[in-house]
């Protein structure tokens, strides 16, 4: 006997993500889901961004880490509330863990939430967390072929950050090819070229973020 089902797998994650999205909308909080490979510079980008926002916005951080709290330790110094989610080896965060993490914040005292997802380009892009936008972070040291290899992330991203631009001359990263591939996958997404360790190129990112947050109010 054949039973017609037509049921979407991961619908539970999607339902929960919509609940999270509705809650954040009600509280007027923007949530940004930062996705990259391990070592692309998400934490350093967050450090710079937290430093920039430390006097102007009320920020919260949800830190996804496979086992440790090292990234959370690095971000503590900016004085913003941080909730750590250890995935115990899991390769992505899901909306259920985000819902749990949100309970740890005073949502009436937040403007912006950053989620640092687990370092991975494929899995996190499948799991809607209820975020306002996904931000893709790539670095010059990991090669120029990421957009064409992982089109789903680069199509869904509302902004792309190309980090470690200061290392460009020491790598075989082909900048023209990267931009060409990115445009092929997503012709319109804003691209920010940064060196988060040196603080280069961040102004444009801060400006975009500021406009993004204001446009939602």
């Amino acid at each position: 006997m054949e039973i017609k089902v037509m049921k979407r797998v991961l619908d539970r994650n999607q339902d929960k993500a919509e609940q999270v999205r509705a809650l954040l909308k009600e509280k007027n909080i923007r949530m940004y889901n930062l996705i990259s490979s391990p070592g692309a510079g998400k934490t350093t980008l967050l450090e710079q961004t937290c430093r920039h926002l430390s006097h102007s916005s009320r920020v919260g951080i949800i830190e996804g880490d496979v086992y440790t709290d090292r990234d959370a330790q690095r971000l503590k110094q900016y004085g913003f509330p941080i909730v750590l989610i250890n995935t115990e080896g899991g390769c992505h965060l899901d909306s259920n863990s985000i819902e749990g993490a949100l309970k740890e914040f005073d949502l009436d005292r937040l403007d912006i939430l950053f989620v640092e997802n687990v370092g991975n380009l494929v899995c996190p892009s499948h799991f809607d967390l209820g975020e306002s936008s996904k931000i893709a972070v790539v670095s010059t040291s990991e090669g120029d072929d990421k957009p064409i290899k992982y089109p789903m992330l680069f199509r869904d991203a509302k902004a792309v950050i190309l980090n470690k631009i200061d290392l460009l001359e020491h790598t075989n990263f082909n900048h023209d090819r990267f931009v060409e591939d990115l445009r092929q996958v997503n012709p319109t997404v804003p691209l920010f070229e940064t060196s988060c360790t040196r603080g280069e190129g961040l102004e444009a990112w801060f400006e975009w973020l500021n406009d993004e947050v204001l446009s939602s109010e």
Partner: protein
Amino acid sequence: MHEVSIVNDLFRIILDIAEREKLSRVDKVHFQLGEMLQVVPELFRFAFDSAKEDTIAANADLEIEFVPVKMRCRSCGHEFEVEEQSFYCPACNGADLDLLEGKELFIKSIEGE
């Protein structure tokens, strides 16, 4: 290895339906998989075969139907399949596209007794 998460959720649904339909065994699962999702079929099958052990689907076959990425151009309305990851409209070169198909993660049907 998001294949494992997908398969875990897949089994939750299969076993729910099997219980509802009072099936004593599941023989086949028809699954629709969008190519945009970049699920690795081998890993997906491996996760499926690991998850089915000791369930009523222990001998079930997994049939995967791949769904190509299909877009509609918002400027000219042209619908097309994406080839070689080029997300431009082949008719008008427009870049403002809506995804029509390619993110499917659907259980279409299950067979069993």
